[in-house]
């Protein structure tokens, strides 16, 4: 693509053309490996400890969600996408539900939109907390300082799950979004609990930063590692924090507002370096911004009904024979898009085709470009900085 990233198929990485004495070693990194964030395999071709070529293999967690969505009706499809991006189920539901709403032309009431905003931002905090923990874990190891950060962030993430549990009854399988709005209203006193948790997280964030993102060892490990420049990021279709860390000021929340983001002003964090440190900085800045957004959302939460359509009574409730819709929303990992074509199932009760554009899959496609030249230690750092969720990659 350019001089810095010649691309995995360019001559520079053609094994036949390498020095015959180079003594290369093939290392299968994963699928069973502590730091591949699930079941992901990278075939690394090493010269000593330096990666010469990296070939990623995804697909070990394929569950056929897209096919299932064709089989299930519109009403039934929502709960099954919870498991795609298993770190941020809320935003998965939202992406799917919004596409269905657009296709079926259902209006969402204002209160439901604000609630969705609050859920999405709380989910972003939870997801970025988990990312910070696992990223430190990649660097510090399960038997080291990394696990300290990991357990601290998990401790606080659990409070957010408790908040979701208060509203939806689920800690993971929320199924709180429905076509036309939300299924669960916020219980009384919930906002006070949220503020309490946010205060706690805000007061403890400097601690995590002292142990991870502001730490000199962290900086030494991440600075200049895994640089994705603007051109490559745009060329590969990277989105979310990765794109913003590469110097592209793009955020769907601000540039194509959905939910209540048109009323809440979003400050988009960007960085220009494009390395692992920049990605970490962007995510930590987003954490702070999300805390602010949740506070603002709670303050401005309107009253009213939460479901603009009809509550689900039977599976064949929503029907359409024509049309297609694409909705992309900004999840913690980037643009999660859902493209849905009407006309499947029994007389249009199900999507004919439902395609989920997973941001993690695109993020992983950067690996063959950025891994060569780095050592094995950097591989886990780069992989961690991309924050891939395998459930979403393989679907």
């Amino acid at each position, binding site marked *: 693509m350019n001089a810095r990233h010649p691309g995995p198929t360019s001559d520079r990485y053609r094994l036949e053309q390498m020095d015959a004495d180079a003594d290369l*070693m093939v*290392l299968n990194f994963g699928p069973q*490996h*502590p*730091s591949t964030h699930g079941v992901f395999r990278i075939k690394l071709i090493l010269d000593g*400890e330096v990666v010469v070529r990296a070939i990623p293999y995804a697909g070990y967690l394929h569950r056929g969600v897209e096919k299932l969505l064709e089989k299930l009706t519109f009403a039934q499809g929502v709960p099954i996408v919870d498991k795609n991006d298993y770190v941020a189920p809320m935003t998965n539901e939202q992406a799917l539900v919004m596409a269905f709403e657009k296709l079926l032309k259902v209006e969402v009431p204002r209160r439901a939109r604000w609630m969705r905003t609050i859920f999405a931002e709380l989910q972003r905090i939870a997801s970025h907390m988990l990312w910070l923990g696992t990223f*430190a*874990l*990649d*660097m*510090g*190891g*399960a*038997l*080291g*300082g*990394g*696990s*300290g950060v990991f*357990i*601290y962030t998990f*401790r606080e993430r659990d409070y957010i799950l408790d908040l979701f549990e208060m509203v939806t009854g689920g800690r993971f399988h929320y199924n709180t979004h429905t076509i036309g709005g939300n299924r669960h209203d916020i219980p009384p006193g919930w906002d006070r609990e949220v503020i309490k948790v946010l205060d706690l997280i805000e007061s403890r964030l400097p601690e995590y930063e002292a*142990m*991870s993102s502001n*730490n000199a*060892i*962290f900086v*030494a*490990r991440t600075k200049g590692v895994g640089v994705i420049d603007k051109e490559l990021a745009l060329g590969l279709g990277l989105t979310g924090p990765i794109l913003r860390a590469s110097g592209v000021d793009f955020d769907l929340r601000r540039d194509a507002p959905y939910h209540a983001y048109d009323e809440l002003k979003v400050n988009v964090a960007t960085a220009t370096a494009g390395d692992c440190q920049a990605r970490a900085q962007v995510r930590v800045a987003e954490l702070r911004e999300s805390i602010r957004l949740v506070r603002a959302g709670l303050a401005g939460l309107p009253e009213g009904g939460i479901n603009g359509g009809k509550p689900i009574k039977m599976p064949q409730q929503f029907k359409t024979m024509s049309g297609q819709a694409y909705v992309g929303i900004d999840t913690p990992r980037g643009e999660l898009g859902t493209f849905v074509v009407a006309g499947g199932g029994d007389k249009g009760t199900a999507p004919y085709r439902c395609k989920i554009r997973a941001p993690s899959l695109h993020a992983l496609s950067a690996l063959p470009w950025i891994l060569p030249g780095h*050592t*094995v*230690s*950097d*591989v*886990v750092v780069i992989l961690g900085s991309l924050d891939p969720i395998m459930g979403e990659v393989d679907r």
Partner: protein
Amino acid sequence: MQGLLRGLVYGGLIITVLMTATAWGMWLERKLAARMQSRIGPNVVGKFGLLQPVADLMKLLQKEEIYPIGADRLLFDLAPFLVTTFAIATAAVVPFTAEAVGADLDVGILWVLALGGLMVIPVWMAGWASNNKFALIGGMRAVAQSVSYGVPLVLTSLVAVVFTGTMSLSGIVKFQIEHGWLALWPPGPGVVAFVLFYMALLAESNRIPFDIPEAESELVAGITTEYTGMKFGLLYVGEYVHTMVGSAIAAVIFLGGWDGPFHVASGLHWMVIKTVALFASVYWVRWSLLRFRSDQLMRLCWLYLVPVSLGLVIFAALWRHFVLR
């Protein structure tokens, strides 16, 4: 004949004490780490989980021993035993009090450093014999790291030797009783030498932030990837013993051994307190820091630790020549 008997008795005693101390050192570490991470730690087996090391031992003994295909069986079997043996053998010269010392060698420090240097051989054996690429990389890293960090370790020990004018460990302690602890006196260089020694010790015993040979997030488990059962246990114990003995030696060289602060109530208990405190601090560091990359580790060693410790040696020589006479 009497010497042999004494050796056997003392040797048996030191192995027993050291292994027991290490076992409960592991318990201490797990408890400490748990509290640092808002957890409880082992608390099921025995009161406060105190019997956890016994349970772990039982578990390891019951496990099946697996030889990977293509492994070099002799080296694969030998490595864990050598690791533990070398680690324990180092303890022979550690003076716990003026009397309680296995062999008060005139060149005690040399014995310690030599055995510490030898540790790299079984580690490499384990890495090579496993026929596993992760283990191989771990072994390569271990060799590079041990060899590099051996240099500042030797140089900082040399600081102590130059100051005190003796290579005998009990001689060093006696000098400190007379003149003050090396970590505190002369103010400044002593404490720098101690910190450098401590860092080199962390690196030699493969502890975070210098634990790249077994960096489990990268290399699965480094050299121990293919080990199972008691052989894994021995590799594991070997590391802990190494850390424990290293702590004891740091206490002897820089913290005055069995000498109490201001010579108050000197005795074995002070040696134990200092060793355990240093041992615990190693794990405090371990559970707080992230780890370096291997090339950063080498840079840190050769660009900072080695020159500084060289300067310290020169300073020590000048001090010895002009101040102590």
